[in-house]
Protein backbone atom coordinates (compact mmCIF):
# COMPACT_ATOMS: atom_id res chain seq x y z
CA UNK A 1 0.00 0.00 0.00
CA UNK A 2 1.43 3.31 -1.03
CA UNK A 3 1.38 6.06 1.60
CA UNK A 4 -0.10 3.60 4.11
CA UNK A 5 0.90 5.69 7.10
CA UNK A 6 -0.78 8.81 5.76
CA UNK A 7 -3.96 6.93 4.80
CA UNK A 8 -4.27 5.21 8.15
CA UNK A 9 -3.61 8.45 10.05
CA UNK A 10 -6.16 10.16 7.81
CA UNK A 11 -8.71 7.42 8.43
CA UNK A 12 -8.15 7.60 12.19
CA UNK A 13 -8.67 11.37 12.16
CA UNK A 14 -11.72 10.96 9.95
CA UNK A 15 -13.36 8.44 12.25
CA UNK A 16 -12.47 10.46 15.31
CA UNK A 17 -14.25 13.46 13.84
CA UNK A 18 -17.15 11.31 12.68
CA UNK A 19 -17.64 9.65 16.04
CA UNK A 20 -16.81 12.71 18.10
CA UNK A 21 -20.45 13.59 18.88
CA UNK A 22 -21.11 10.10 20.23
CA UNK A 23 -17.85 9.97 22.16
CA UNK A 24 -18.40 13.48 23.54
CA UNK A 25 -21.86 12.64 24.85
CA UNK A 26 -20.89 9.17 26.17
CA UNK A 27 -22.23 8.54 29.64
CA UNK A 28 -23.88 11.93 29.79
CA UNK A 29 -27.36 10.79 28.82
CA UNK A 30 -29.88 13.31 30.06
CA UNK A 31 -32.62 11.98 32.24
CA UNK A 32 -36.14 11.51 31.02
CA UNK A 33 -38.08 14.76 31.04
CA UNK A 34 -39.78 15.50 34.32
CA UNK A 35 -42.21 18.38 33.88
CA UNK A 36 -43.16 19.92 37.22
CA UNK A 37 -46.52 21.45 38.01
CA UNK A 38 -46.74 24.66 39.98
CA UNK A 39 -48.86 24.77 43.10
CA UNK A 40 -51.51 26.68 41.17
CA UNK A 41 -51.60 24.13 38.38
CA UNK A 42 -51.90 21.30 40.91
CA UNK A 43 -54.81 22.99 42.63
CA UNK A 44 -56.63 23.54 39.34
CA UNK A 45 -56.46 19.75 38.82
CA UNK A 46 -57.54 20.04 35.19
CA UNK A 47 -55.96 22.04 32.41
CA UNK A 48 -58.09 23.54 29.64
CA UNK A 49 -58.77 20.01 28.48
CA UNK A 50 -57.81 16.59 29.89
CA UNK A 51 -54.19 15.81 30.67
CA UNK A 52 -53.81 13.20 27.91
CA UNK A 53 -55.33 15.56 25.36
CA UNK A 54 -53.08 18.43 26.39
CA UNK A 55 -50.04 16.18 26.32
CA UNK A 56 -50.52 15.19 22.71
CA UNK A 57 -52.49 18.09 21.27
CA UNK A 58 -51.32 21.28 23.03
CA UNK A 59 -49.26 22.39 20.05
CA UNK A 60 -52.18 21.99 17.68
CA UNK A 61 -54.46 23.76 20.12
CA UNK A 62 -52.08 26.69 20.46
CA UNK A 63 -51.71 26.90 16.71
CA UNK A 64 -55.47 26.93 16.32
CA UNK A 65 -55.88 29.51 19.10
CA UNK A 66 -53.37 31.80 17.48
CA UNK A 67 -55.16 31.74 14.12
CA UNK A 68 -58.57 32.17 15.67
CA UNK A 69 -57.53 35.04 17.91
CA UNK A 70 -55.45 37.00 15.45
CA UNK A 71 -57.35 36.36 12.25
CA UNK A 72 -60.95 35.84 13.39
CA UNK A 73 -60.91 37.83 16.65
CA UNK A 74 -62.38 34.82 18.46
CA UNK A 75 -60.74 35.24 21.81
CA UNK A 76 -62.67 32.87 24.01
CA UNK A 77 -62.42 29.10 24.12
CA UNK A 78 -65.18 26.93 25.48
CA UNK A 79 -63.69 23.70 26.76
CA UNK A 80 -65.22 20.25 26.64
CA UNK A 81 -66.29 20.81 30.26
CA UNK A 82 -68.15 23.97 29.28
CA UNK A 83 -65.72 26.36 30.95
CA UNK A 84 -64.69 29.51 29.08
CA UNK A 85 -61.05 30.49 28.75
CA UNK A 86 -59.32 33.52 27.27
CA UNK A 87 -57.19 32.18 24.43
CA UNK A 88 -53.73 33.35 25.29
CA UNK A 89 -50.46 31.54 25.74
CA UNK A 90 -48.93 34.40 27.67
CA UNK A 91 -51.92 35.21 29.85
CA UNK A 92 -53.89 31.98 30.30
CA UNK A 93 -51.38 29.14 29.91
CA UNK A 94 -48.49 30.81 31.67
CA UNK A 95 -50.67 31.95 34.54
CA UNK A 96 -50.66 28.41 35.91
CA UNK A 97 -47.57 27.07 34.18
CA UNK A 98 -45.40 29.94 35.33
CA UNK A 99 -42.40 27.61 35.62
CA UNK A 100 -41.39 27.46 31.96
CA UNK A 101 -37.94 25.95 32.54
CA UNK A 102 -39.35 23.18 34.71
CA UNK A 103 -42.45 22.56 32.64
CA UNK A 104 -42.33 23.49 28.95
CA UNK A 105 -38.59 23.24 28.44
CA UNK A 106 -38.35 19.79 30.04
CA UNK A 107 -39.82 17.94 27.09
CA UNK A 108 -38.94 20.50 24.44
CA UNK A 109 -35.26 20.28 25.30
CA UNK A 110 -35.36 16.51 25.53
CA UNK A 111 -36.70 16.08 22.02
CA UNK A 112 -34.60 18.97 20.78
CA UNK A 113 -37.22 21.40 19.56
CA UNK A 114 -37.22 25.15 20.05
CA UNK A 115 -40.74 26.49 19.54
CA UNK A 116 -40.52 30.02 18.18
CA UNK A 117 -43.38 31.14 20.41
CA UNK A 118 -40.82 32.66 22.72
CA UNK A 119 -39.22 34.81 20.03
CA UNK A 120 -42.06 37.26 20.66
CA UNK A 121 -44.19 36.00 23.54
CA UNK A 122 -42.69 36.94 26.84
CA UNK A 123 -41.51 34.21 29.14
CA UNK A 124 -42.85 34.40 32.67
CA UNK A 125 -40.50 35.54 35.39
CA UNK A 126 -39.51 32.57 37.46
CA UNK A 127 -38.72 32.82 41.12
CA UNK A 128 -36.17 30.05 41.25
Amino acid at each position, binding site marked *: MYDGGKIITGLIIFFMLLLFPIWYQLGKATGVPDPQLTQKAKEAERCVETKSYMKTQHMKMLDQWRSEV*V*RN*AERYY*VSGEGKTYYKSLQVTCMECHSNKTKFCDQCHDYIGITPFCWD*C*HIEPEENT
Partner: protein
Amino acid sequence: MGIDRRSFIKIAGLSAIFGLGGKAAFELLAPGDVDASLKDIPLTQANTWGMVVDTNKMTDEIMVACKSACHKEHNVPEWGDSRLEVKWIWTDTYEHTFPNQGHNYLDEQFAEKHFLVLCNHCDFPPCCRVCPTKATWKREDGIVMMDQHRCIGCRFCMAACPFGARSFNWGDPQKAPIELNPQFPTNPDYPTRTKGVVEKCNFCAERIARGLIPACVEAANAVEEDSLVFGDLDDHGSKVRGLLRSNYAIRRKAELGTGPNIYYIV
Protein backbone atom coordinates in the same frame (compact mmCIF):
# COMPACT_ATOMS: atom_id res chain seq x y z
CA MET B 1 -87.92 -4.42 -9.96
CA GLY B 2 -86.70 -0.84 -9.79
CA ILE B 3 -88.63 2.28 -8.98
CA ASP B 4 -90.33 4.28 -11.68
CA ARG B 5 -89.40 7.81 -12.61
CA ARG B 6 -92.31 9.38 -10.70
CA SER B 7 -91.51 7.80 -7.32
CA PHE B 8 -87.80 8.51 -7.76
CA ILE B 9 -88.51 12.24 -8.22
CA LYS B 10 -90.91 12.20 -5.25
CA ILE B 11 -88.32 10.61 -2.96
CA ALA B 12 -85.58 12.92 -4.20
CA GLY B 13 -87.80 15.98 -3.66
CA LEU B 14 -88.76 14.96 -0.14
CA SER B 15 -85.13 14.20 0.78
CA ALA B 16 -84.06 17.61 -0.51
CA ILE B 17 -86.74 19.35 1.58
CA PHE B 18 -85.71 17.47 4.75
CA GLY B 19 -82.04 18.01 4.02
CA LEU B 20 -82.37 21.75 3.54
CA GLY B 21 -84.68 22.11 6.53
CA GLY B 22 -82.28 20.22 8.77
CA LYS B 23 -79.33 22.33 7.72
CA ALA B 24 -81.22 25.57 8.23
CA ALA B 25 -82.29 24.50 11.69
CA PHE B 26 -78.71 23.61 12.57
CA GLU B 27 -77.40 26.94 11.34
CA LEU B 28 -80.09 28.83 13.19
CA LEU B 29 -79.55 27.02 16.49
CA ALA B 30 -75.79 26.58 16.59
CA PRO B 31 -74.72 30.27 16.58
CA GLY B 32 -77.35 30.94 19.25
CA ASP B 33 -75.71 28.42 21.53
CA VAL B 34 -72.34 30.03 21.07
CA ASP B 35 -73.74 33.52 21.60
CA ALA B 36 -75.44 32.44 24.79
CA SER B 37 -72.28 30.93 26.21
CA LEU B 38 -70.33 34.12 25.53
CA LYS B 39 -73.02 36.42 26.91
CA ASP B 40 -71.19 37.20 30.14
CA ILE B 41 -68.01 38.28 28.35
CA PRO B 42 -67.59 41.96 27.55
CA LEU B 43 -67.27 41.99 23.79
CA THR B 44 -67.37 45.31 22.08
CA GLN B 45 -68.39 45.28 18.49
CA ALA B 46 -68.69 47.86 15.75
CA ASN B 47 -69.01 48.13 12.01
CA THR B 48 -66.35 50.77 11.51
CA TRP B 49 -64.11 51.74 14.34
CA GLY B 50 -62.88 55.29 14.04
CA MET B 51 -61.28 58.04 16.04
CA VAL B 52 -61.72 61.77 16.36
CA VAL B 53 -58.79 63.94 17.41
CA ASP B 54 -59.85 67.32 18.75
CA THR B 55 -56.81 69.39 17.81
CA ASN B 56 -58.11 72.35 19.84
CA LYS B 57 -57.97 70.31 23.03
CA MET B 58 -54.80 68.40 22.14
CA THR B 59 -51.68 69.62 23.84
CA ASP B 60 -48.11 68.39 23.63
CA GLU B 61 -48.51 66.96 27.10
CA ILE B 62 -51.51 64.83 26.06
CA MET B 63 -49.74 63.62 22.94
CA VAL B 64 -46.73 62.51 24.96
CA ALA B 65 -49.08 60.70 27.34
CA CYS B 66 -50.82 58.96 24.41
CA LYS B 67 -47.60 57.81 22.86
CA SER B 68 -46.15 56.59 26.10
CA ALA B 69 -49.35 54.74 27.07
CA CYS B 70 -49.55 53.03 23.67
CA HIS B 71 -45.92 52.05 23.50
CA LYS B 72 -46.01 50.74 27.06
CA GLU B 73 -49.16 48.75 26.36
CA HIS B 74 -47.72 47.12 23.26
CA ASN B 75 -44.09 46.69 24.29
CA VAL B 76 -42.74 49.06 21.65
CA PRO B 77 -39.08 49.67 22.45
CA GLU B 78 -37.11 52.90 22.15
CA TRP B 79 -34.09 52.45 19.89
CA GLY B 80 -32.55 55.90 20.20
CA ASP B 81 -31.94 56.02 16.45
CA SER B 82 -34.51 57.41 13.99
CA ARG B 83 -33.50 54.86 11.37
CA LEU B 84 -34.46 51.99 13.68
CA GLU B 85 -37.46 53.74 15.20
CA VAL B 86 -40.63 51.73 15.72
CA LYS B 87 -43.77 53.78 16.20
CA TRP B 88 -47.46 53.07 16.57
CA ILE B 89 -48.56 56.57 17.43
CA TRP B 90 -46.47 59.71 17.15
CA THR B 91 -46.63 63.42 16.43
CA ASP B 92 -45.82 65.31 13.28
CA THR B 93 -45.83 68.87 11.96
CA TYR B 94 -48.75 70.48 10.15
CA GLU B 95 -46.85 70.32 6.87
CA HIS B 96 -46.37 66.58 7.17
CA THR B 97 -49.75 65.79 8.63
CA PHE B 98 -51.83 67.77 6.12
CA PRO B 99 -49.47 68.30 3.17
CA ASN B 100 -52.13 69.69 0.83
CA GLN B 101 -53.73 72.07 3.29
CA GLY B 102 -50.88 74.57 3.62
CA HIS B 103 -50.81 78.04 2.14
CA ASN B 104 -48.64 81.14 2.32
CA TYR B 105 -50.74 82.90 4.92
CA LEU B 106 -51.11 80.01 7.35
CA ASP B 107 -50.81 81.36 10.84
CA GLU B 108 -47.89 80.28 12.99
CA GLN B 109 -50.18 78.73 15.56
CA PHE B 110 -51.12 76.10 12.97
CA ALA B 111 -47.91 75.92 10.97
CA GLU B 112 -45.84 75.19 14.05
CA LYS B 113 -48.36 72.98 15.75
CA HIS B 114 -47.83 69.26 16.15
CA PHE B 115 -50.55 66.73 15.48
CA LEU B 116 -51.20 63.27 16.82
CA VAL B 117 -50.87 60.74 14.01
CA LEU B 118 -51.36 56.99 13.84
CA CYS B 119 -52.58 54.31 11.47
CA ASN B 120 -55.75 55.60 9.78
CA HIS B 121 -57.40 52.17 9.51
CA CYS B 122 -58.42 53.11 5.98
CA ASP B 123 -61.57 51.91 4.25
CA PHE B 124 -59.46 50.85 1.26
CA PRO B 125 -56.08 50.11 2.81
CA PRO B 126 -53.32 50.03 0.20
CA CYS B 127 -51.08 48.12 2.63
CA CYS B 128 -53.47 45.16 2.56
CA ARG B 129 -53.65 45.13 -1.22
CA VAL B 130 -49.91 44.73 -1.57
CA CYS B 131 -49.29 42.20 1.19
CA PRO B 132 -48.19 38.96 -0.51
CA THR B 133 -48.99 36.73 2.46
CA LYS B 134 -52.24 38.31 3.74
CA ALA B 135 -50.39 39.10 6.95
CA THR B 136 -52.30 42.35 7.06
CA TRP B 137 -55.97 42.65 6.23
CA LYS B 138 -59.08 44.67 6.92
CA ARG B 139 -61.21 43.23 9.67
CA GLU B 140 -65.00 43.34 9.47
CA ASP B 141 -65.09 45.91 12.25
CA GLY B 142 -62.83 48.24 10.28
CA ILE B 143 -59.52 47.55 12.00
CA VAL B 144 -56.55 47.07 9.69
CA MET B 145 -55.05 44.13 11.53
CA MET B 146 -51.60 42.66 11.37
CA ASP B 147 -50.68 39.00 11.84
CA GLN B 148 -47.08 38.95 12.96
CA HIS B 149 -46.99 35.17 12.63
CA ARG B 150 -47.46 35.46 8.91
CA CYS B 151 -45.38 38.56 8.11
CA ILE B 152 -42.32 37.79 6.02
CA GLY B 153 -40.88 41.29 6.34
CA CYS B 154 -40.98 42.22 2.66
CA ARG B 155 -42.00 45.82 3.57
CA PHE B 156 -44.34 46.25 0.58
CA CYS B 157 -46.93 47.58 3.03
CA MET B 158 -44.52 50.23 4.26
CA ALA B 159 -44.02 51.39 0.70
CA ALA B 160 -47.76 51.34 0.07
CA CYS B 161 -48.89 53.23 3.17
CA PRO B 162 -49.12 56.97 2.41
CA PHE B 163 -49.09 57.82 6.11
CA GLY B 164 -45.86 56.16 7.17
CA ALA B 165 -47.81 54.29 9.81
CA ARG B 166 -45.78 51.13 9.57
CA SER B 167 -42.40 50.36 11.10
CA PHE B 168 -39.94 47.60 10.44
CA ASN B 169 -38.13 45.73 13.18
CA TRP B 170 -34.50 46.04 12.19
CA GLY B 171 -33.50 44.38 15.42
CA ASP B 172 -35.02 42.07 18.00
CA PRO B 173 -37.15 44.28 20.29
CA GLN B 174 -36.14 42.14 23.26
CA LYS B 175 -32.55 43.21 22.59
CA ALA B 176 -33.27 46.95 22.38
CA PRO B 177 -30.78 49.09 24.36
CA ILE B 178 -31.48 48.44 28.02
CA GLU B 179 -30.54 51.96 29.14
CA LEU B 180 -33.37 53.36 26.97
CA ASN B 181 -35.81 50.63 27.97
CA PRO B 182 -35.12 49.93 31.61
CA GLN B 183 -38.32 47.98 32.26
CA PHE B 184 -38.75 46.30 28.92
CA PRO B 185 -41.04 44.42 28.26
CA THR B 186 -43.40 46.90 29.83
CA ASN B 187 -46.58 44.87 29.47
CA PRO B 188 -46.18 41.20 30.41
CA ASP B 189 -49.63 40.40 28.96
CA TYR B 190 -48.76 41.43 25.41
CA PRO B 191 -46.09 39.93 23.17
CA THR B 192 -43.21 41.80 21.61
CA ARG B 193 -42.39 41.36 17.95
CA THR B 194 -39.41 39.64 16.44
CA LYS B 195 -36.65 40.86 14.20
CA GLY B 196 -37.73 41.18 10.57
CA VAL B 197 -41.46 41.86 10.83
CA VAL B 198 -43.48 45.00 10.22
CA GLU B 199 -45.71 46.39 12.92
CA LYS B 200 -48.22 49.18 13.42
CA CYS B 201 -51.16 50.39 15.47
CA ASN B 202 -53.85 47.71 15.86
CA PHE B 203 -56.48 50.07 17.35
CA CYS B 204 -55.96 48.10 20.56
CA ALA B 205 -57.85 45.11 19.17
CA GLU B 206 -56.81 43.13 22.25
CA ARG B 207 -58.28 45.77 24.57
CA ILE B 208 -61.49 46.19 22.57
CA ALA B 209 -62.02 42.44 22.83
CA ARG B 210 -62.03 42.82 26.61
CA GLY B 211 -64.41 45.76 26.56
CA LEU B 212 -61.76 48.45 27.09
CA ILE B 213 -61.07 51.54 25.00
CA PRO B 214 -57.69 52.00 23.28
CA ALA B 215 -54.79 52.90 25.55
CA CYS B 216 -54.14 56.28 23.85
CA VAL B 217 -57.78 57.32 24.25
CA GLU B 218 -57.72 56.34 27.90
CA ALA B 219 -54.50 58.29 28.47
CA ALA B 220 -55.77 61.36 26.60
CA ASN B 221 -59.08 61.46 28.44
CA ALA B 222 -57.31 61.19 31.76
CA VAL B 223 -55.74 64.60 31.02
CA GLU B 224 -58.43 66.34 28.97
CA GLU B 225 -61.93 65.02 28.46
CA ASP B 226 -62.84 64.32 24.81
CA SER B 227 -59.49 65.36 23.35
CA LEU B 228 -59.37 61.94 21.70
CA VAL B 229 -62.56 59.97 21.10
CA PHE B 230 -62.97 56.42 19.87
CA GLY B 231 -66.16 54.84 18.60
CA ASP B 232 -68.27 53.30 15.89
CA LEU B 233 -68.51 55.58 12.86
CA ASP B 234 -71.46 53.55 11.55
CA ASP B 235 -73.49 54.13 14.69
CA HIS B 236 -75.50 57.33 14.34
CA GLY B 237 -75.74 57.72 18.10
CA SER B 238 -72.04 57.24 18.89
CA LYS B 239 -69.91 59.96 20.40
CA VAL B 240 -67.62 60.15 17.38
CA ARG B 241 -70.58 60.76 15.11
CA GLY B 242 -71.90 63.37 17.49
CA LEU B 243 -68.58 65.22 17.34
CA LEU B 244 -68.49 64.98 13.55
CA ARG B 245 -72.01 66.41 13.37
CA SER B 246 -71.25 69.41 15.53
CA ASN B 247 -67.71 70.14 14.31
CA TYR B 248 -65.87 70.53 11.04
CA ALA B 249 -63.31 67.74 10.73
CA ILE B 250 -60.67 66.91 8.16
CA ARG B 251 -58.79 63.73 7.36
CA ARG B 252 -55.20 63.18 6.33
CA LYS B 253 -54.57 62.93 2.58
CA ALA B 254 -58.23 62.08 1.88
CA GLU B 255 -57.62 62.92 -1.80
CA LEU B 256 -55.67 59.67 -2.17
CA GLY B 257 -58.90 57.76 -1.79
CA THR B 258 -57.80 55.37 0.92
CA GLY B 259 -60.67 56.49 3.15
CA PRO B 260 -58.91 57.25 6.44
CA ASN B 261 -60.97 56.76 9.59
CA ILE B 262 -59.12 59.19 11.85
CA TYR B 263 -60.81 62.59 11.89
CA TYR B 264 -59.20 65.83 13.02
CA ILE B 265 -61.40 68.60 14.40
CA VAL B 266 -59.64 71.86 13.50
